[in-house]
């Protein structure tokens, strides 16, 4: 019996080797080689879509401009009548009109503001362009900050990416417990805005009877102590400096072995800090984190070198997370949750089990049916489907695509559809055989005629998948990917591959003429 080697069977062999070789690392859990990444719904993890309150970004921009004006004027001994700011503008009055030249010089360096001067009255407004730029930067900054924090938190491969115009996608795999998830969320959400503020010693005694409005009228703000909300501090609302000038923060211990946080400032911050402490000996300095006063020590002497401590009653874990948050920069804008999906690892394992069960039982049903109905042609079709599955898995691993639960459903569904090409072809071959056409011609014509229908329908299917991919969110995208890979692979295995197998055995088929065995026909062929 001579078997005929042909190019189709060679392609099939190559495809089989490709599929088996590249899907092996995932199937056998080998150490080497690219493995399939399981989606969060299968391996467990946290998926969040975070919104950014960009309008707060402009407000904080204004606040920092007000702080720099204050710094400048204090340094140059320029006296200001008042310095006010709201969400989009800063205004102030000079007491001495002679200083106008100096201040004009300084204001020139402030970017993105429209300055209007009217005698001694100055007002600065944020330009529309600058507003948009600031908001855009605030999202970029938030992404950067969250990424930094998560990298230092020690989770493997966190995803932090912009989605759409105003949202940030955060995906954390491998979170095992609810507690761990909550800790990660707290770390991300922490504003970690450090401000060093001067206590208004002149009015501090009256803080407990003062209303917020009164405080504002003095250019002050009332802040609570972090441990004891009853304890209030009256501080100047414009900070001396903020966390933006921080270069490092780390956890340390005080003399009683309680955790605290050490921080260092950059050169500019150190200078401002030194100047301020030099000027304010005998007064108190409030260390404010996220709007709460952590400590307010007395300034005994000028503090140079630009380093300080934040003490509070933290646990080691809290202090560590806080240091990470400070080190990776403060979140300039508040973020909020638009969407959150968290799946425990045990549920993920259940989903894998359920979809594998569906996959295997669906597969067995289809195989049994195909072999029962088509005889050896059914076996050939089954072989094509198996190769097809290997190719899908290999392509998912190679492309680094993520396998999600809908993706698994896509593969299961694909098994049903993959045999369709073989069914169309087999039906055509049977038709030819019934008409008394010689078997080699029946096969050739069967493939040729079936081809057009298969191509037409697969092209429309791929189109649908492309649209699904473009419009779908994460999990649905996975579904579209596995399904379109399956369609492409099935064109290869069903149209090219199985044809190769028939050609390979052609002389044998022609010799036995046993169409019941080969094609499952009830009547013997001519």
């Amino acid at each position, binding site marked *: 019996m001579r078997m005929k080697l042909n190019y189709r069977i060679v392609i099939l062999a190559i495809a089989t080797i490709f599929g088996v070789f590249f899907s092996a690392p995932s199937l056998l859990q080998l150490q080497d080689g690219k493995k399939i990444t399981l989606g969060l719904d299968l391996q467990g993890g946290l998926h969040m*879509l975070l*919104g950014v309150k960009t309008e707060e970004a402009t407000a904080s921009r204004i606040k920092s401009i007000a702080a720099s004006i204050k710094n400048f004027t204090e340094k140059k001994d320029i006296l200001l009548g008042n310095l006010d700011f709201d969400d989009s503008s800063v205004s102030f009055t000079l007491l001495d009109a002679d200083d106008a030249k100096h201040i004009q010089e300084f204001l020139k360096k402030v970017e993105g503001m429209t300055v209007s001067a009217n005698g001694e009255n100055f007002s600065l407004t944020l330009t529309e362009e600058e507003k948009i730029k600031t908001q855009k930067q605030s999202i970029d900054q938030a992404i950067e900050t969250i990424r930094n924090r998560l990298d230092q938190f020690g989770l493997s491969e966190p995803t932090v990416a912009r989605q759409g115009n105003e949202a940030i996608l955060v995906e954390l795999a491998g979170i095992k417990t*609810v507690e761990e998830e*909550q800790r990660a*969320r*707290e770390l991300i959400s922490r504003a970690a805005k450090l401000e060093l503020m001067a206590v208004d010693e002149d009015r501090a005694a009256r803080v407990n009877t003062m209303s917020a409005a009164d405080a504002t009228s003095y250019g002050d703000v009332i802040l609570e102590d972090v441990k004891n909300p009853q304890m209030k501090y009256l501080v100047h609302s414009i900070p001396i400096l903020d966390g933006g000038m921080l270069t490092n923060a780390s956890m340390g211990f005080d003399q009683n072995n309680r955790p605290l946080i050490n921080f260092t400032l950059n050169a500019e911050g150190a200078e401002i800090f030194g100047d301020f402490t030099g000027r304010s000996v005998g007064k108190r300095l409030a260390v404010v984190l996220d709007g709460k006063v952590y400590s307010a020590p007395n300034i005994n002497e000028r503090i140079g070198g630009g380093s300080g401590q934040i003490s509070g009653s933290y646990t080691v874990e809290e202090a560590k997370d806080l240091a990470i948050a400070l080190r990776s920069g403060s979140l300039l804008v508040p*973020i909020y*949750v*638009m*969407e*959150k*999906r*968290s799946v*425990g690892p*045990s*549920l993920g394992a259940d989903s894998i089990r*359920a979809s594998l*069960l*569906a*996959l295997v*039982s*669906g*597969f067995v*049903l*289809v195989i049994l049916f*195909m072999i*029962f*109905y088509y005889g050896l042609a059914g076996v050939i079709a089954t072989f094509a489907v198996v190769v097809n599955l290997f190719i899908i898995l290999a392509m998912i691993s190679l492309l680094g695509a993520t396998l999600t*639960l*809908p993706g698994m*459903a896509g593969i299961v*569904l694909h*098994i*049903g*559809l993959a*045999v*369709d090409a073989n*069914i*169309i072809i087999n*039906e055509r071959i*049977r038709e030819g055989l*019934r008409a008394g056409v010689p078997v080699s011609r029946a096969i050739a014509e069967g493939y040729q*005629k079936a081809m057009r*229908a298969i191509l*037409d*329908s697969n092209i*429309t*299917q791929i*189109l*649908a998948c492309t*649209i*699904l991919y473009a*419009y*779908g*969110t994460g*999990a*649905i995208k996975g579904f579209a990917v596995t*399904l379109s890979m399956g369609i492409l692979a099935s064109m290869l295995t069903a149209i090219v591959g199985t044809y190769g197998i028939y050609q390979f055995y052609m002389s044998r088929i022609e010799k036995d003429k046993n169409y019941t065995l080969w094609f*499952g026909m*009830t009547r013997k062929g001519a």
Partner: protein
Amino acid sequence: MELFKEDKVYNFLGKGKIFFVASFVLFFLAIAIVAIKGFSFGIDFTGGTVVQVKYTQDAPIDKIRESLKKSELFEHASVSEFGSSQEVVIKTPSSTVALGHDIGDTTKEILKGTGDFEIRRVDMVGPKVGDELRVKGLSAFFLTLLAIMATVTFRYEWRFALAAIIAIVHDIVITFGFVAYFEVDFNIESIAALLMILGYSIHDTIIVYDRVREHIEESKETDFVMIINEAVSRTQSRTTLTSLTVFFVVLTLFVFGGDIMLGFSFPMLIGVIVGTYSSIFVAAQLVVWTGFSVADYRQRMAEKVKNRAEKEKMRAQYESGVM
């Protein structure tokens, strides 16, 4: 094994009116059900929270309900068994925006004391996200319809495309009538199912159309009804077999995929049945009603062939330097 006698031509169109009435009734019944009952949209669309909790013993549903009353976040919450008696799903239309401490954490605190449990899943969707999804889902659907219309028109004829689109809409409306009737959660997976049914329905329809086209091109038959009867009969075996295999796998998904896949597997299950029915009894039948004429089609084909031949003749003449 063979199920159908391939050489026999069944008179499908002879019974056309019966199927037309059946489809018509089902179609409008489905619309009425959707209109009256509406879909039970999942949180993907409405916003809200789903918390899946697994107890080590049977879940104390009454106790859980009682405990949840403490928080106004769960004012409109529902608690139901999920998959097994140990597992429950709590659904509430509320969601929280705070990142550090959210509704999932609140649930955990509230449920303390109801037994030994593990929170296995917390899905929370804000109201804005749902709106976006609805828009995206609908645009994906219409875009796919347009793409199909364009390809079928290009490969066949616009009347085929029109009939195919009507058949697709028919399949999808009836399927989602069932989804509404059985109050299956309509989630993002259901949108995927919808697009899959769309793909499956057009796939089946195209296989039949391909046969119709082949018969028009290769036979001498001029009666379009006869051509369609023959095409549908000849593809009958394939349509049934493929539908069976797809039905098998969707059935396993439905049975083993669990409640979490229901939003996908249920519409798929119905969609496969309706899609098969429509590609046999509806899609081709509709082409007849669009006024397709075999003679015209053949004439156009002939002209195309003639034009091509003419062009080749001209080129040959040009190349041999006659002109």
